[in-house]
């Protein structure tokens, strides 16, 4: 499972199935400050992910 972080670095995680909330917890990311896509589609954070999923975490809070 590939996790693309807000700063575009990539983490490969082996554990599955796992809830997105647990991933965000591990990465110390507040779910209120991001949206998350799985294979390009937006999903809620209580979604179960794993296998070959590509998860992208997008930071939403911007100045300006």
């Amino acid at each position, binding site marked *: 499972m590939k996790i693309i972080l807000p700063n575009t670095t990539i983490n490969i995680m082996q554990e599955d199935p796992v*809830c997105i909330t647990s991933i965000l917890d591990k990465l110390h990311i507040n779910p209120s400050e991001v949206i998350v896509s799985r294979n390009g589609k*937006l999903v809620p954070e209580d*979604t179960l992910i794993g296998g070959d999923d590509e998860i992208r975490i*997008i930071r*939403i809070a*911007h*100045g*300006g």
Partner: protein
Amino acid sequence: MSLGNPVTGGAERCTLCSEPPVIRLLLPDRHLCAAHLIADVEERAAQTIHERELIKPHDRIAVAFSGGKDSTALIVILSRLLPAWEDVSLVAITVDEGIVGYRDDTIRAAEEVTKKLRIEHVCVSFKDIISDDLDTLLIGRETQACSVCGILRRKALSVSAHKAGATKVATGHNLDDEAQSVLMNTLRGDLPRLVRTSDADSHDCFIPRIKPLAGISEKEIAAYLFVQDMFPFLPECPYTRHALRLEVRTMLSAMEQKHPGTMHNLIKSKRAIEKYVDWRAISEPIRRCRECGDPCSGELCQVCMLRKSLGK
């Protein structure tokens, strides 16, 4: 009710139909698919406009349009609601502060959106207002970035809105922004600013400001755009790190995550206080700036004070 996922408690379907959910919202707890999220956001914005009478027939709305996500959502929503109003027109105003590596991308994004939506678009720069860009003005005073930028941005927006014949200025402030402002004004002990009403809160001298997205969270706005392939992937303003708002935002979003409803409750408190406080009794009367004649509360307006401090 959502159908629970046996392992995670998550839903496999939208609460309102059988499509896959894209977001989980609390208060009330529901999972929404893309179509129902779009409808929900647009209905709530329309409701805010209707309940607070933000837009009236024959209004010309100047949309403060940075090209970022909040103002993009605002202009998309207003353009879709436009046919419901009698003789209302939109004009987008983008302020170019002159921030290298940041604003060029957002201006390009703004141009693309207005072209697609066929909305008149005006761009005004800080150079037009104070003869210098923000990067130059801030050399040696980077920590004041947000206050300097805010003063000049309001001025640039006001000048352009007047020129465009606007009767209202719409901004993309969302629920998170509004809750952050309540907390920031409380932390600063700034009662007049805390209780100033959010909608059309200006004196006769100013074009009234409206915030149609004030009841919608930042996350809902981001999701609303993402599911329509309109989320602008743009760089963050390099000066944001100096802002008190950044600290407040982090604190408040952590509180919201732990105690859902915190942001709504802050806004509710502000509205309750507003009912009991006479804003005019605690605010300075509106005067005219002795340098430029613009409305202000002291002898000089903030722009003229800034000009003096910058030696302009």
